[in-house]
């Protein structure tokens, strides 16, 4: 039975509740999905910066295609991979708007690689939020460009094989080398502390738009427990053990400079997976 201390539950004692920048629509995401958490912190940033009336988001194709139903801001839904092209035009034609794209790994790093690289290389004054869960969620768990070596998916049922499938794409490190990116970071949303850091990164990304110095790119490592065939709690643990060595968390480029001691050329190919997902 739930316990309820009615003396505490008073408006003046409220320290946390869902932001009004999220609509009341129930998200369609699977239980425990990082998309919901990331949506929430992006919306909280928009709320805290007071820019709800000046923000336009661009939704991708993939699990987060319906992002526009959840954010109470104006939203455009792009064709698969084209969000950075849309965002480019929105921002250039409306320089006073805050413009952000929200894309998954298939959208941003496979079908939309050209649009991603060129928007970053042109130094568009936009914020790009990139969800990397190493798998295609919406279509049912196929290999993504970021799928780890050895990781199973519907199209790599015996594990990703480098000879057949090539290497996991560390697009974030690649983008950090471009002069048009101003802030590049990799965060995660698997613990409360990580969520706080990720939110701070997103906030910095939005604030950077005022500086007009280029793209702020925030990768969010997220679990896809359905695609990985684990419970949400197991998936977050697996992510920490297996995704983090391949995709190290932290700032990669700040204020237009590669962060000291970050090795953007580091190649990890055969880090052994701790648990073989089923």
């Amino acid at each position, binding site marked *: 039975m739930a316990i309820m201390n009615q003396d505490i539950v008073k408006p003046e004692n409220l320290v946390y509740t869902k932001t009004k920048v999220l609509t009341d629509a129930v998200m369609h995401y699977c239980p425990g999905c990082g998309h919901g958490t990331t949506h929430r912190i992006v919306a909280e940033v928009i709320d805290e910066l007071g820019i*709800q009336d000046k923000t336009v988001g*661009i939704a991708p194709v993939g699990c987060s295609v319906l992002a526009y139903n959840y954010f109470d801001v104006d939203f455009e839904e792009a064709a698969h991979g084209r969000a950075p092209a849309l965002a480019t035009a929105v921002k250039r034609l*409306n320089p006073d*708007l805050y413009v952000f794209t929200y894309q998954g790994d298939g959208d941003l790093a496979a079908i939309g690689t050209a649009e991603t690289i060129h928007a970053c290389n042109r130094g568009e004054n936009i914020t790009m939020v990139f969800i990397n869960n190493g798998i295609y969620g919406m279509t049912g768990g196929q290999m993504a460009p970021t799928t780890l070596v050895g990781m199973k998916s519907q199209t790599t049922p015996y594990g990703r094989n480098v000879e057949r499938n090539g290497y996991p794409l560390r697009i974030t490190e690649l983008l950090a080398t471009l002069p048009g990116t101003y802030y590049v970071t990799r965060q995660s949303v698997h613990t409360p502390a990580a969520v706080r850091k990720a939110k701070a990164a997103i906030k910095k990304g939005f604030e950077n738009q005022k500086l007009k110095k280029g793209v702020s790119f925030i990768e969010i490592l997220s679990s896809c427990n359905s695609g990985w065939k684990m419970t949400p709690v197991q998936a977050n643990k697996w992510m920490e053990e297996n995704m983090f060595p391949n995709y190290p968390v932290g700032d990669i480029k700040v204020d237009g400079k590669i962060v000291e001691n970050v090795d953007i050329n580091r190649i990890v190919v055969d880090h052994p997976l701790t648990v073989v997902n089923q």
Partner: protein
Amino acid sequence: MAKEMKLMKGNEAIARAMIASGTDGYFGYPITPQSEVMETLMAEQPWETTGMVVLQAESELASINMVYGGAATGKKVATSSSSPGISLMQEGLTYLAGAEVPCLIMNAIRGGPGRGTIQPAQSDYFQSVKGGGHGDYQLYTIAPASVQEMYDFVFDAWDIAFKYRIPVLILTDGAIGQCMEKCYVRDYVPRWTEEERRKNAPWGCWGKPANRGHNVVTSLELESSRQEVFNLKLQAKYREMEAKEVKYEALNCEDADYVIVAYGTSSRIAMKAMQIGREKGLKIGVFRLITLFPFPKKEIKELAQHVKGMLCVEMSAGQMIEDVKLAAECSLPIEHFGRFGGIIPTSEEVLEALEKQIIK
């Protein structure tokens, strides 16, 4: 309105008309035979004068999606390309049509299929008026036959695009794009103010004020019953356009025994063939399509009732002829004559074809 006369290329006319008609943005990728559109814009630097944004994209795929992004904020946004580039843009075009985003696209058709040639052709008719991309949709498709029309149709395009929330396609070729003719230019129509944008595009993504819900520009609908309702709405819009927005030119059709049906470059050849034929005593008329969608179904049907035969002249293997035959309900002999792969027929060839295939 039309004051100053200038000599210019068709492609240049498109670019100058974009600036003069208060276009907010152009996103393109170079491709022969229409690269002068972006070159003219870049040389004119309208961002210094009208505030128009001009950007060279990394591909046609990107440029059409930039059009989508920009136009979805309720601004006047355009692109231009040629057949292979337009093929790449089909994804964006079906999204634009599905999301009902007004915008302007120019296609200078070149000979295909595949990489083909760079010379003028009309072989993208099917692609332009029968979809091109997936799904049941139409573009308002208009075919200029002169540099002046290239210029004027840009102005008309914005009226139609925003009135019906539809992408407008100016369908032309390198012959009109590259030829130089006189062109009366118009006074600058100022770009919309912020207030005008909000009034003309209340559906646009320009930042949600407190007094309205959020605007979403999308073509996604997961519920098939709602998708059907939406598709019916689109079809109703297309029927309304067929009733109200058809444009054509009928020359000497009143007393004609035979009519040549053509559009764009081939209509100019047809007019010369008509002139030679009339000098020989043949009662020939020309029915020039200006809008390809909406197609002048009613007018062709009426024409079919009092002429003896029609020759469809196209720089293709025969595409428009299908719509002409459908409109005429095959009630009279209708034949096709075309050169293709980038070859423009001569007026003598056209007249000969009319005499051999129709008059006999």
